[in-house]
């Protein structure tokens, strides 16, 4: 376990596809770029990441004195087959200097305890990360060698935990279906997740910037709704983009006028 680990990114771009977990700050800073949703994952007691998940997220008490640890992650909500919109044709990140802290910390993952980080260095199928001894040592004696990005992302996650907990309390109160969905998701062998909307987060946290964020999200959601239309495999993504487009339409107009639901029409295709 205490072996030194090597890692070097070869810029294959493969880890820049699909869902991208973000900090709240990164999510809002990129509201004009990413379609934003909130991904909820639940862990059962006894799971290795339980304590860290409970610290960075929340816990949910179920019947029979059972408890789940729940992580709520602001996310660039993209299908697995979709590249991040910031990924350039040369497989390089086009916003490298400003990329989200999630991307800066790769391949480490501060949602997990530091001592389990070595496991994350094993490239997933199709990833071309160099983990040979020719690559620099990145993990040694159960610790990350160059740790600034990891520490910064962990710090951001710790700082935003109270806001996410407030959001979780709100959702458990007003959306009882979520409790059932998380319980179900946690009982599956493969970790599954549940997705909720930006509008619910903005409402729960009384975000004063809701109108501006909604206006930034509108063209993004419209674009992704168009690109996912007509593909049965992407039906859930498509429906969420369309739903959120309608919700953001309302929020973007709320301060300007007092619209009725008839005003918020989504393109239908």
């Amino acid at each position, binding site marked *: 376990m205490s072996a030194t680990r090597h890692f070097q990114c070869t810029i294959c771009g493969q880890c820049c596809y699909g869902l991208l977990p973000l900090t709240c700050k990164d999510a809002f800073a990129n509201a004009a770029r990413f379609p934003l949703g909130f991904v909820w994952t639940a862990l059962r007691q006894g799971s290795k990441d339980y304590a860290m998940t409970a610290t960075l997220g929340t816990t949910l008490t179920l019947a029979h004195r059972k408890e789940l640890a729940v992580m709520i992650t602001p996310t660039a909500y993209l299908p697995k087959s979709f590249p991040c919109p910031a990924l350039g044709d040369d497989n390089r990140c086009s916003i490298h200097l400003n990329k989200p802290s999630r991307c800066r910390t790769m391949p480490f993952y501060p949602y997990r305890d530091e001592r389990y980080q070595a496991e994350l260095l094993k490239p997933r199928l199709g990833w071309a990360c160099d983990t040979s001894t020719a690559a620099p040592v990145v993990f040694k004696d159960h610790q990350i060698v160059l740790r600034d990005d990891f520490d910064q992302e962990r710090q951001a996650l710790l700082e935003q935990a109270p806001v996410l907990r407030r959001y979780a309390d709100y959702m458990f109160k*007003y959306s*009882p279906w979520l409790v059932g969905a998380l319980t179900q998701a946690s009982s599956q062998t493969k970790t599954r997740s549940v997705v909720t909307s930006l509008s*619910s987060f903005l409402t729960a946290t*009384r975000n004063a910037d809701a109108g501006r964020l*909604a206006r930034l999200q509108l063209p993004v959601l419209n674009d992704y709704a168009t690109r996912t239309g007509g593909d049965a495999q992407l039906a859930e993504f498509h429906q969420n983009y369309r739903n959120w487009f*309608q919700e953001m339409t309302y*929020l973007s107009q709320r301060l300007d006028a007092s619209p*009725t*639901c*008839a005003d918020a029409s989504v393109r239908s295709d």
Partner: protein
Amino acid sequence: MMTLCPCGSIHDYEVCCGPIIAGTPAPTVEALVRSRYTAFVKCALDHVERTHAPEVRDDFNRADAERVTQQYEWRGLEIRRVTETGDTAKVEFVVRFRREQQELSTISVSGFRRDHGQWLYVNTESSQIAPQRVTKIGRNDPCSCGSGKKAKKCCGVALEVK
């Protein structure tokens, strides 16, 4: 000409939920629940927002509700039980609707409070969604909206009667 109220009361909209949605205080807690349902049918969500108790008014996700009013087809409301204790009340009710080609219903128990003569929504104690068994309603079966009227006289046909 009259228009049957969507709440299933078999009264004219103009004397049932209409005035309450327009701002007249609901005379009973049941009338408030009916009018809040009808406000969803009529896309009149100002009424729903206004009749949240002040301490939970900002919790109302109006953007989500606006989407729901557009996307769902409303099938009916059934008030199951009203328990009033002075200025507080609990109401159990069922809302039936169609969403993404599915007939669904939610059964909820909500709490209400009377402030200065105004009934207000306070909380939801429980709410469960269930797929609605899809049974074909015959023209002479009771309407699914819970009004007790025959389907052909209620939601099954145009709601306008002379």
